[in-house]
């Protein structure tokens, strides 16, 4: 009967294809294929992408047992592994910092590791062992809740393209020099680190994402930056530091990014940019900047409004603008002060030739907000959508807002004003 059964086609597929199939299985199942037949016994052992999580072991209520099994699983898998390992990812809350991790990283450093992702349990931070800095071929590194302390002999990750550090404790300015010592770095993401002062020197950087309590950020050398997303939290410490800081923050952050295409600024971003004076004439124009998104812009702070104006008037090719209002006071200032600001500061011949979509949210209907919308409507000849979403707390003022909006002159015949009742 066996002679007439269908042939075993899968076992004869080329190794590279079989590896691609096994990589798509959870690693535990990939390892289990070892019992299928002699051809399959060590097929899994040459996989170059190893992804571990708690699915590797049978779960139960006994956390200590799970931790033990997981450590055993990973150690055995690495020990039986053959050949290079290009990617090692370990993401699980069931493991805390333990000596085995150091051993695993030592092992990986000898296996030409290219991508390393480490995210463990929240209660303890991992002190990254020095052998991590011997992983010379690293292209991608993602670390969560670690303490970084490179040895003095560390010369950098010369091939690193992606660096993602989440809640990483920076011992002795390690992060800044780490970034500078990775000449090929293209993607950088730093979240929730301690209040850093950061000078970023990364000549190949294209994508930057920063989120946390930063005292001072300077993009000293990032000429190729294409997209930037920055969320700045405020503490008293930082607010104090901001008052004392020297130099114009706008220039420090946006003075050297001529190829910027996308800018996202969250929380206190515009406030941060407004400190250190108004850069009347910018050294560069943002001729590639197409999308700007700014959150929590305070329309009561003239300096913040200036920041927004400088930004958009220097972005000839802007297509989409999203602004959400957020001021520190609880009621909107319905009485305007210095409304002649708009006549003084707005360039007389200003036209947003490519602006198609504007979305304003959390609007309270305050005078300066309305002036801004008016300014945009008057100067955007191809505008298609002006979407206004009022702040949920503003109920009485909505009709007034609408009445004013309807009166504004529009440069674009196609502009639709969408007022969302929310």
């Amino acid at each position, binding site marked *: 009967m066996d002679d007439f059964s269908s042939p*075993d*086609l899968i076992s004869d597929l080329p190794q590279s294809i079989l590896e691609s199939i096994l990589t798509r299985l959870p690693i535990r199942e990939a390892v289990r294929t070892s019992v299928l037949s002699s051809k399959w016994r060590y097929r899994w052992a040459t996989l170059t992408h190893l992804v571990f999580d708690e699915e590797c072991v049978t779960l139960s209520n006994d956390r200590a047992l799970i931790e033990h099994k997981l450590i055993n699983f990973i150690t055995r898998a690495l020990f039986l592994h053959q050949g290079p390992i290009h990617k090692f990812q370990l993401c699980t809350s069931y493991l805390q910092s333990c000596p085995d991790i150091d051993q695993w990283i030592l092992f990986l450093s000898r296996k030409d590791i290219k991508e390393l992702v480490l995210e463990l349990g929240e209660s303890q931070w991992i002190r990254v062992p020095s052998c991590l800095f011997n992983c010379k071929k690293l292209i991608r590194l993602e670390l969560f809740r670690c303490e970084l302390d490179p040895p003095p002999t560390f010369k950098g990750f010369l091939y690193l393209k992606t660096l993602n550090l989440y809640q990483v404790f920076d011992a002795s300015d390690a992060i800044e020099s780490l970034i500078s010592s990775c000449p090929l770095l293209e993607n950088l993401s730093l979240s929730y680190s301690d209040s850093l002062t950061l000078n970023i020197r990364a000549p190949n950087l294209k994508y930057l994402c920063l989120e946390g309590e930063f005292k001072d950020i300077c993009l000293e050398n990032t000429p190729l930056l294409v997209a930037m997303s920055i969320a700045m939290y405020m503490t008293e410490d930082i607010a104090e530091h901001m008052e004392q800081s020297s130099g114009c923050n706008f220039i420090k952050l946006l003075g050297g990014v001529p190829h910027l295409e996308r800018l996202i600024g969250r929380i206190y971003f515009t406030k941060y940019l407004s400190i250190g004076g108004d850069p009347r004439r910018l050294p560069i124009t943002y001729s590639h900047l197409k999308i700007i998104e700014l959150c929590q812009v305070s329309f009561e702070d003239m300096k913040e409004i200036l920041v927004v104006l400088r930004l958009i008037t220097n972005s000839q090719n802007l297509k989409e603008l999203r602004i959400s209002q957020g001021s520190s006071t609880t009621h909107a200032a319905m009485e305007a002060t210095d409304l002649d600001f708009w006549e003084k500061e707005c360039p007389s011949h200003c036209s947003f030739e490519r602006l198609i979509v504007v979305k304003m949210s959390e609007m309270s209907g305050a005078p300066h907000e309305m002036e801004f919308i008016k300014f945009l409507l008057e100067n955007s000849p191809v505008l298609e959508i002006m979407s206004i979403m009022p702040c949920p707390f503003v109920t009485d003022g909505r009709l007034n807002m609408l009445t004013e909006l309807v009166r504004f002159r529009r440069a674009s015949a196609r502009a639709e004003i969408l007022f969302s009742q929310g």
Partner: protein
Amino acid sequence: MSSSKSNKIVKLESSDNKTFEVEEAVAVQSETLKNMVDDGCANDTIPLPNVNGKILEMVLGWCKKHVDETVTGDELNKYEADFLDLDQADLYGLLMAANFLNVKGLLDRVLQRVADMIKGKKPEEIRRIFNIKNDFTPEEEEEIRLENAWAFD
């Protein structure tokens, strides 16, 4: 997009001497063919000795569907799902062809399909589905069970 860059036709010949003519836009879904087009080597009929007519027709059908702008997202999803309802011989033929021709989306889907056939199954089931003969001696089986006990923990 009323006029595409070129309305050039690419001619392909399968291992069993069937010829196929497709628009360049369809052919370049295959990175392998795209490189040939870019290098100017696609003017004559391109022989594909690794791919038979039946499989090549399937691959080109996939490519055509993916450049067709009238196809909706849902239609495409259904198409892709139905497409892979094949017997194993065809499935692996498709896999090898997609790999050789480097049609990324197709390759990805087929690889995932095979992986899904393995996922969640016990070894005996996997052997049955793929006709894998267990060629271990009882002693070897015991040895392997011990060696890999940690993966069955």
